[in-house]
């Protein structure tokens, strides 16, 4: 164990004030994700695909950002329905644009995006086989209620997989990623400042009464799941 000083200002959580409030900024963010950060989607995508079982019919993404992960997963699973919800109009608009392009390009997949409050998901109880979320948790206004909603809509034999960044990830890892996100560095760091630590995520789960769920640190990320998950390769 070594005592050292922290380089980055990430000790305390700084919630993001009204993120994605400008459609042009959302388009810029979307373009950046499509161009350079597609690698970031690989592990969440692999993890979702690894949990697909015979007989599954419905997947739900909670907080789909600009819809890229849902579109990617749906393209791999053309026989399953993927429904996404998001509560920011600009994000929904850009996701709809992406969906239009996917339809135009004859992409396989059955995808639907809609706007809804994340703490009041518009799905019946026990209706989804896999409930997933990526890079959204840090923006949730009512995270405890949204976690309960994820649990509510997930089938008893289904699984909830929520991935986001870990604010207390190793600084070397964070600064390494920063070298590659280039002009998206500010956006990345503000998201990271708004992200939870493993301990804070565990506290959210405790408040939500989801005491048998998992919160695991993984490189830069944090993976919350309703049951233990098999590791996926990077």
């Amino acid at each position: 164990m070594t005592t050292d000083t922290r380089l980055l200002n990430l000790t305390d959580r700084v919630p993001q004030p009204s993120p994605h409030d400008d459609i042009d900024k959302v388009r810029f963010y979307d373009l950046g994700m499509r161009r350079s950060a597609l690698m970031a989607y690989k592990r969440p995508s692999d993890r979702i695909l690894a949990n697909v079982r015979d007989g599954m019919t419905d997947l739900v993404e909670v907080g789909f950002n600009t819809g890229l992960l849902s579109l990617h997963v749906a393209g791999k699973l053309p026989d399953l329905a993927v429904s996404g919800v998001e509560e920011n109009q600009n994000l929904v608009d850009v996701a709809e644009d992406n969906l239009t392009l996917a339809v135009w390009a004859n992409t396989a997949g059955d995808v639907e995006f809609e706007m809804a409050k994340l703490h009041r998901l518009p799905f019946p109880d026990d209706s989804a086989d896999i409930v997933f979320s990526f890079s959204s948790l840090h923006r949730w206004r009512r995270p405890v209620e949204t976690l309960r909603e994820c649990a509510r809509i997930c089938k008893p034999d289904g699984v909830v997989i929520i991935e986001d960044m870990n604010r207390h990830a190793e600084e070397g890892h964070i600064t390494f990623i920063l070298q590659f996100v280039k002009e998206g560095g500010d956006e990345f760091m503000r998201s990271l400042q708004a992200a939870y630590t493993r301990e804070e995520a565990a506290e959210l789960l405790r408040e939500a009464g989801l005491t048998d769920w998992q919160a695991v640190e993984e490189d830069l990320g944090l993976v919350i799941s309703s049951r233990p998950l098999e590791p996926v390769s990077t």
Partner: protein
Amino acid sequence: MSITTTTTSMPFWKEYPERDSEWVRQYPTKHVPVNEEEVFARKPMGVYVHIPFCNRLCFSCPYIKHQTDRDLTRTYLDALKTEITNYAGRPYIQDHVITLGYIGGGTPTALTAPQLDDLLGHLFGSLNVEEGADFSIETTPVDITERKATVLLERGIRRISLGVQTFVPEELKNIGRPNDPEMLKESIRLLRRCGFENINIDLMHGINGQTMESWEHSLDVAIDLGVTCISFYTYMEFAQVSTKRRKLPPVPEKAVVDDMFLFAAEKLSKSGFLGYYGDCFAKPGYQPKYGETSWSEDIPIIPLGPTATGHLRDHWYFNEPDIGRYIQTVTEGRLPISMGKHITKPEAIRRSMVLGVKAGRVNRDRFRRIHGVDFMEMFRAEIDDLTEKGLITADEDGIEVTGPKGWYYLDNISKAFYSPEYRRYPQHLGADISNFISRQPIPLQITSRPRSEETGCDH
């Protein structure tokens, strides 16, 4: 307490408590002959120039670069010349003489021949550049022309490095390069006709569709061309975002890529090349001074251009990465220094080890002359550990990295000499994180990752 006096016979030297009669006013003593030339000798210095433009952008390149654009290039060159002028006017710079330099990018020869002529004329005319200084420049077989080569030679560039990557047509196509190996060979012949003696070829291993046989072919062609230096880099495949790239043959397995490294290192050694930096090889006498000397001998480097890295006045630093902000800062008369680190004396010693190892060997006497310490004693534990692992050999003269195994692990070896504070922090590629630096030092506990059975929520 007892005081022992050993110099009782010297009238000017008394040990306390006896009062000395010499009024001390000079140091050091032990005088030797000195003349005017030595007292006023200029210390060596290097320069790195970053040209952030390419006529064709490669998707595997992580460096800061822009598509060549006439207006932006012109504005940028004006700013770069202003930056050179700003440095040239500083007394510290005037006390030095430029003995080595490197012009990289991007593709420096994306500039036109008149632009290169103008830039180099300003660079060499403004700074104190030594006659015959060791300057290298990067180019590509596509960008180099007879006119540009002539300008470079006339302006004093001695070594030229071409990004060839492979001599196999299919592999060239796969990485998006013009795929005629004959054209690549012709660019080397052109440089030789123009008068370049020191020519480097960059090759890549691990590219889509490459096999050990095709890799050997590229190496054979490079050796047969009679170039003085051959470097090879591992291809980094980024996200396959285009439908075209998804159809490419896969990159070789990691184990094959590793074998390619060892194969090339052995082949080039047997062909009369000497290794440095692990993956660079040069015929004896042709290794560029930039890097080897500047790193191991702690020679200051002036950084010019966005993201250029330098080492001046006990600071390592890099320039503003955003080309717009770079141009604005320089135009306002300021140096575009962005982020870096003060180098303390203990860190300067480590820096010489970390970077000196990259040249493949560290000489004990030379190190002692520069830093006044014996690195063999100072880093005894690290050296013993690396020796035990078969990565280096150590004797009275210093240490030498064992090839090819040690060359393969050269960066691991180098990092063994990092101070604990900097371990597990990456080097920069141009990200400015100044807005997010912690204002107050906060104690950090570095612990190992929790084991899998501990990672669940504990309720």
